[in-house]
């Protein structure tokens, strides 16, 4: 499939509805709407049977139980065929004893890759870079990560992001740099002078009116 500059140039953004799709996967034909009501991590990898991708797939498989506890489903993608995905998953299991438990999209015509801006021609015109889209239960894109072909993703950060997003949704707070579950969270900044003054009396731990922390 020959992509136009416009197609390659399209990048979905945080806060937008995730582009809908219907795709052939290793678990049959799946639609984006099949994941409605769950969090979804849609992630792409450059190619099957490649070293960094194999380490990532093992790592994603290893954190899957933790993701499930948080109501998150995983969905992989590359521009390889279903047969290639199946062969690779079987090979990974045979060589490493790790079973790949999540579906993988076979995006041979790049329909999904282009809709999600996963092809970055400066890196590769034929493969997807390492993207992560965190999509919430209402199918809104909440986080986008892009990693280059050479660098495998960090699973701790992926779990941390899920925890941070879910904490924000549940408690209406923000999370500071390097936040981990159990750490203090940031109270959203006040919108009026009155709110700023009131805030200082509310028992938060404040550096000043615009930066207040609290324990959940």
């Amino acid at each position, binding site marked *: 499939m020959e992509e136009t500059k416009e197609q390659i140039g399209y990048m979905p953004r945080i806060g937008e509805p995730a582009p809908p799709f219907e795709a052939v996967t290793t*678990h*049959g*034909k*799946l*639609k984006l*709407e*099949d*994941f409605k*009501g*769950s969090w979804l991590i849609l992630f792409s990898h450059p190619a099957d049977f490649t070293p960094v991708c194999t380490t990532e797939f093992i790592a994603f498989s290893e954190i899957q139980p933790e993701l499930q506890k948080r109501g998150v*489903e995983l969905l992989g993608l590359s521009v390889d065929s279903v047969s290639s995905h199946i062969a690779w998953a079987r090979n990974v299991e045979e060589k490493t004893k790790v079973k790949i438990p999540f579906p993988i999209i076979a995006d041979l015509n790049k329909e999904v890759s282009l809709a999600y801006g996963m092809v970055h021609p400066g890196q590769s015109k034929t493969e997807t870079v390492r993207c992560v889209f965190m999509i919430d239960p209402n199918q809104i894109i909440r986080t986008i990560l892009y990693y280059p072909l050479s660098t495998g993703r960090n699973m701790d950060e992926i779990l941390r992001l899920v925890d941070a997003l879910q904490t924000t949704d549940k408690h209406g707070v923000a999370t500071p740099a390097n936040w981990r579950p159990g750490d203090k969270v940031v109270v959203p900044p006040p919108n009026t002078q009155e709110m700023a003054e009131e805030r200082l009396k509310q028992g938060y731990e404040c550096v000043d009116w615009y930066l207040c922390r609290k324990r959940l």
Partner: protein
Amino acid sequence: MACVSPDGKPTESGTRMLRALRAGSKSPEEVALETGLPLFKVRSGLRDIAQAGLAEQKEDRYRLTEKGATLVE
């Protein structure tokens, strides 16, 4: 189809979904709860099962057809 083999027989997960429908019409959410399968897999699996003529969909609920019922008797 993920839940129905090319020879028309349901796969293991397909059979679990068909069995869940034996008691009457159910929504994908109810089938997921009963089978323990992920909801996304149930939604796509029930579509396959309906396409194969083993169940029929009415609004957001599925029920076994005669053909489907014979497979899980």
